[in-house]
């Protein structure tokens, strides 16, 4: 028997179902079918069934291919893609290290001053215990805040398996904005968030999603370096893209992109920055494509500046 034992029953069902509805169709790519080698090991198969009408009735032409090699190269490509994404992410985080340190420094400052204030209150003759209690509660909160910052950072630095799972886009965006808060302040950039309520979850990897977002936000800030500082506004918008999952747009108020460069900005090693390799957007596009979404650039219709838009599917459509 060519089939692994545990799958025999379900494959028989599949066959019966097909015979009940004779149509030529290709296999659902997410449906893994395995055969069995002589030594008992499993082999991934691709099966195509074609209904052929003949004088003797409908016949079914079945082609079965061993796709071990294809699967391996797909896996290798995914690994390389993730390796590159991680590398690019770590580089990006390195550039942000100053702001990240600041985000940690704030709760540390609050904790130190709170603790020293509490010690002073305790040494007063009549200690206001309510005040001290309030202080201790704040210290606990600030400690948690620092912990959250570290948690977010650790996640982004980690080189883990890419995990495709239901992802709340708005939450992930708010996390990123918190992380980038001081970098935005440093750039004098105000963020206009316009996050649609009750968005469906998308299917994606949280870390890679945030990586793309951070990249687009940093690019947006850089693009506004020559914009008058009171006009440096970055819009971050989410909306449901009918039938296309969720659409996320990051728009700046810089000088926009020349029409003939709309596509080339995504090519690797194309950059307008004095430092940087020009890999950011190329990697972003790779990530989004691997998620089954699209990433493109456009100029804002209403005012100056460029807008980077990407979509992410709500259903499993990823190729990873």
């Amino acid at each position: 028997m060519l089939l692994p034992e545990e799958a025999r029953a379900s494959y028989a069902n599949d066959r019966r179902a097909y015979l009940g509805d004779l149509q030529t169709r290709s296999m659902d790519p997410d449906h893994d079918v395995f055969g069995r080698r002589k030594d008992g090991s499993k082999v991934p198969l691709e099966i195509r069934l074609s209904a052929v009408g003949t004088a003797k009735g409908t016949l079914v032409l079945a082609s079965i291919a061993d796709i071990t090699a294809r699967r391996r190269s797909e896996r290798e490509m995914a690994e390389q893609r993730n390796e590159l994404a991680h590398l690019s992410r770590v580089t990006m985080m390195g550039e942000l290290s100053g702001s990240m340190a600041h985000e940690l420094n704030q709760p540390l400052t609050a904790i130190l001053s709170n603790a020293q204030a509490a010690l002073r209150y305790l040494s007063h003759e009549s200690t206001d215990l309510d005040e001290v209690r309030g202080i201790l509660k704040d210290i606990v909160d600030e400690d948690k805040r620092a912990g959250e910052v570290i948690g977010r950072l650790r996640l982004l630095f980690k080189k883990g398996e890419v995990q495709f799972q239901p992802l709340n886009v708005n939450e992930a965006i708010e996390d990123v904005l918190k992380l980038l808060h001081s970098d935005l302040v440093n750039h004098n950039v105000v963020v206009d968030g316009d996050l649609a309520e009750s968005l469906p979850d998308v299917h994606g990897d949280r870390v890679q999603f945030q990586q793309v977002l951070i990249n687009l936000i940093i690019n947006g800030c850089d693009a506004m370096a020559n914009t008058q500082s009171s006009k440096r506004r970055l819009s971050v918008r989410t909306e449901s893209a009918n039938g296309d999952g969720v659409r996320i747009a990051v728009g700046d108020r810089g000088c926009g992109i020349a029409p003939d460069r709309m596509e080339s900005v995504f090519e690797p090693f194309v950059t307008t920055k004095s430092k940087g390799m020009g890999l950011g957007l190329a990697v972003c596009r790779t990530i989004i494509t691997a998620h089954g979404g699209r990433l493109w650039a456009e100029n804002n219709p209403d005012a100056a500046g460029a807008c980077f838009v990407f979509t992410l599917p709500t259903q499993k459509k990823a190729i990873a």
Partner: protein
Amino acid sequence: MTLPAPVVFAVDDDASVLKAVARLLRSSGLAVTTFSSPREFLDGYDRQAHGCVILDVQMPGLSGLELQNALAADGTGLPIIFLTGKGDIPMTAKAMKRGAVDFLTKPVDERDLLEAVRSAIAKDSISWQARREVAEIKSRLATLTPRELEVLGHVVSGKLNKQTAAELGTVEQTIKVHRGRVMEKLNVESVAELVRIAERGGIKVPS
């Protein structure tokens, strides 16, 4: 004028840090007023207060350094202590040059903060008096009519009544009356005093 009790104005957009720093100052017996943005501070602080300002350098909207400029333009001259997450040297130098009394790095130890605040307040005790005098002079100058201001300008630049009258197209007697009114309003007895006060009040001498 007697020196009022000092007030520390703390400005930081991070609510937790602001609260903690204010607590620390209060726990050591200082009066503190907090503001969550430079704009809020500029709109709401008591311009006659004696004390100092603690400013976070990194804030959205007006930066700490810009606020320093706005305060200077305000003429209050409250000493400023800067708090910063990452004090780079050019930024520190710029702030100090414009009269910041201290530049402290977060997280700030109570010893450093309280010492900075005390010395800022001590410094302000001296300048507060001068500031009040200028403010007083300015408020008195504000009671002068445009014509009186004109006459004052001429007196200050050392012109005789006769010259002034000629230049302003009137008679000497009228100028004398204006001049008397000016001295009365500014509460001075001599021309020397008048000149001193006009100068402190920022009256420009016509050339």
